[in-house]
């Protein structure tokens, strides 16, 4: 059963990607892709229910392993993919009409989008850490093509940096993966079992600590490059701001999670071998540095999409920090923050995309008075940023509270306070920028076309989900997060 569900989840977008290329189907590329994304979402949700009721699932021999942590990542990918695909339909039509894209770019875009979706969905369900690396590296190559779809000098520059830095970074992660395999080979032998996470977790305490220490450093720096942890983040603001906005939503909202997911899996192994203190100190250091480094760039930013991208660097840092603090508070906070960030950021990138198209600029100075010009879109932008700022009643308030609680429990109170200060400053500057955009005086005579139903639906759905999860979280959601936190704690 799980096998069938995984198959339909991955095959639907792949089949769509191929069939879109057939000339008679090119006209309906968008709706076809949307249909495939919905199939993926339904399959992912069904898998989630199965994991919730029957515990972790394995399929295809030992190739597929899905536990609560996988489910959280997977459902987020599927939800954001559906919204981004829905959002893409009017977005791409608009860009073709405006001449930013050529006619034939449409089907190509939707094909790539579907391959990208399927590719990301492989990462959280695969048990073999080597194949997981292959899948994550493949996401770089596929998404690079989406970033450069505009064929301008700047998008080429962003794509090139992303390809080069992403590939080198991830090569380091391969070295770390290889060392993990080397550490396991005396115990599990030289077979592909030696890279199965389930096998490795069982023998984590017997892995050579010297090798695992080195391996974790390589893995953290390597996958950390794709997560956007500073100082390896330099490609991220370029790629996330140059990509078409629905793609930015996927890149920031869920692709970063995929790389983080790999770090979390390896952290369990490394912590089992060398102890928590080593892995957690590294995570805290990178986390705090990322949050700190992103702050000045958020403050002085005038490009709305770059601002959101730097905010992703900051939030990835916060999640790393929360994982580093560990304990029941820290780990739960990390999972909740990850969910809240994905939903908020994807909605914000798509809302920003609407504004960028309406004003034909990314500069926030030239976007004033959004709330009176486009009330609904402006309101979503404002609500999203309030959610991203961690103000109550939004889930980020709870997760940041958990972060502080976790820091004191772990005896890192001072670092926790420093983290909170950075969070507060970043939130204040985000709010400052967006309030200007929303409430500023619109230029005389400026009008913008009201966004259509598909656009409004796609940008509001993630926020509606976030509000429900924040105010009245269903019991299943909370228990799924708790289970996922147990998995990253190494006890799942």
């Amino acid at each position, binding site marked *: 059963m799980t096998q069938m569900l995984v198959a339909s989840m991955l095959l639907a977008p792949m089949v769509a990607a191929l069939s879109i290329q057939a000339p008679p189907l090119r006209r309906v590329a968008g709706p076809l892709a949307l249909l495939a994304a919905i199939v993926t979402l339904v399959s992912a949700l069904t898998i989630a229910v199965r994991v919730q009721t029957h515990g972790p699932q394995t399929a295809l021999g030992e190739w597929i392993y899905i536990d609560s942590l996988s489910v959280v990542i997977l459902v987020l990918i599927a939800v954001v993919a559906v919204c981004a695909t829905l959002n893409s339909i009017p977005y791409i039509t608009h860009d073709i009409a405006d001449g930013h894209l050529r006619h034939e770019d449409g089907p190509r875009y939707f094909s790539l989008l579907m391959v990208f979706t399927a590719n990301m969905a492989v990462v959280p369900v695969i048990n*073999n850490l*080597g*194949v997981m*690396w*292959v*899948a994550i*590296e*493949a996401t*770089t*190559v596929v998404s*690079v*093509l989406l970033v*450069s779809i505009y*064929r*301008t*000098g*700047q998008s*080429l*520059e*962003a*794509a*090139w*940096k992303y*390809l*080069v830095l992403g*590939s*080198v970074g991830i*090569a380091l992660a*391969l*070295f770390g993966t*290889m*060392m993990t*395999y*080397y550490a396991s*080979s005396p115990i599990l032998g*030289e*077979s*592909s079992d*030696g*890279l199965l996470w389930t096998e490795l977790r069982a023998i984590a305490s017997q892995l*050579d600590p*010297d*090798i695992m220490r*080195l391996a974790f450093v390589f893995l953290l720096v390597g996958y950390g490059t794709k997560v956007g942890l500073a100082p390896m983040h330099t490609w991220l*603001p*370029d790629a996330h*701001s*140059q990509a078409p906005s629905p793609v930015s939503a996927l890149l920031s909202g869920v692709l970063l999670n995929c790389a983080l997911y790999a770090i979390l899996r390896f952290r369990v192994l490394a912590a089992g071998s060398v102890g928590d203190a080593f892995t957690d100190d590294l995570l805290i250091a990178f986390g705090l540095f990322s949050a700190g480094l992103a702050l000045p*760039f958020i403050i*002085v*930013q005038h490009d709305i999409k*770059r601002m959101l991208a730097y905010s992703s660097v900051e939030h990835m840092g916060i999640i790393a920090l929360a994982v580093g603090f560990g304990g029941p508070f820290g780990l739960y906070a990390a999972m909740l923050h990850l969910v809240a960030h994905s939903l908020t950021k994807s909605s914000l990138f798509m809302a920003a995309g609407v504004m960028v198209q309406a004003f034909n600029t990314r500069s926030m100075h030239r976007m004033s008075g959004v709330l009176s010009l486009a009330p609904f879109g402006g309101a979503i932008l404002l609500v999203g940023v309030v959610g991203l700022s961690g103000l109550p009643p939004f889930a980020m308030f709870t997760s940041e509270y958990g972060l502080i609680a976790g820091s004191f429990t772990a005896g890192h109170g001072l670092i926790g306070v420093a983290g909170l200060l950075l969070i507060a400053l970043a939130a204040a500057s985000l709010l400052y920028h967006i309030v200007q955009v929303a409430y500023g005086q619109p230029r005389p005579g400026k009008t913008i076309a009201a966004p259509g139903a598909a656009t409004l639906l796609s940008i509001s759905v993630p926020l509606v989900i976030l509000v429900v999860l924040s105010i009245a979280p269903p019991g299943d959601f909370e228990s799924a997060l708790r289970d996922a936190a147990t998995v990253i704690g190494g006890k799942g």
Partner: protein
Amino acid sequence: MSDQLASTLINDLSVGMVIAAIGVVWARSLGWALLLICLQSLLLAGAALCAGLATASSHVLIGAMLTLAVKVFAAPILLWLVLLKLPTSHDVQASIGQRTGVILAIVLALVFGQSLDAGPFRTAIGSDRVLPTAVTVMVIGLLVMVTHRQALTQIVGFLMIENGMALAALTATYGMPLMVELGIFLDLLMAVFVAFVYSGRMHTIFGSMDTDSLRTLKG
């Protein structure tokens, strides 16, 4: 092939890979850089062949064939096509001079070759010198990526990092499991292909492949 012989051969081949790496830093024309990276991949394929024959394991032999197909033929051919499209200068443009670069590469080779000697690794084949040489190749690859400004030489640097990694994997664990190895080659080929497409596009848009044109996105 006896283990002893295989170990000696792999050792010599890995030293050859370091020399080829230094050669890429020395090269002043793009053609030479390509030829040397091609040679380095050939040496790697040879090392994999020795390991495969010594252990009689099919997946190491398949790995050797794939190295030959992807790293010795496919990737360099793609890069050669980029080179042919360049109308004028085939000179390497680097931010440090030839002599400085070569001296730096040799120093790096000596430092990494010596210091990693007593690492936690006890390799299954080859002498314990192979892992240090693998890391040296990776570090020199990184040096090439950082100091060379053209898109083409950056890809060469990336391929060198990959070669170093493959050498390390080969000697530490006889390579990765076959499925993983296949995936790695597929990814590598895709990445080089995308880079191939981009260098063409870079040429159309900026009129050169100098990555200095790619400095507009800041802050």
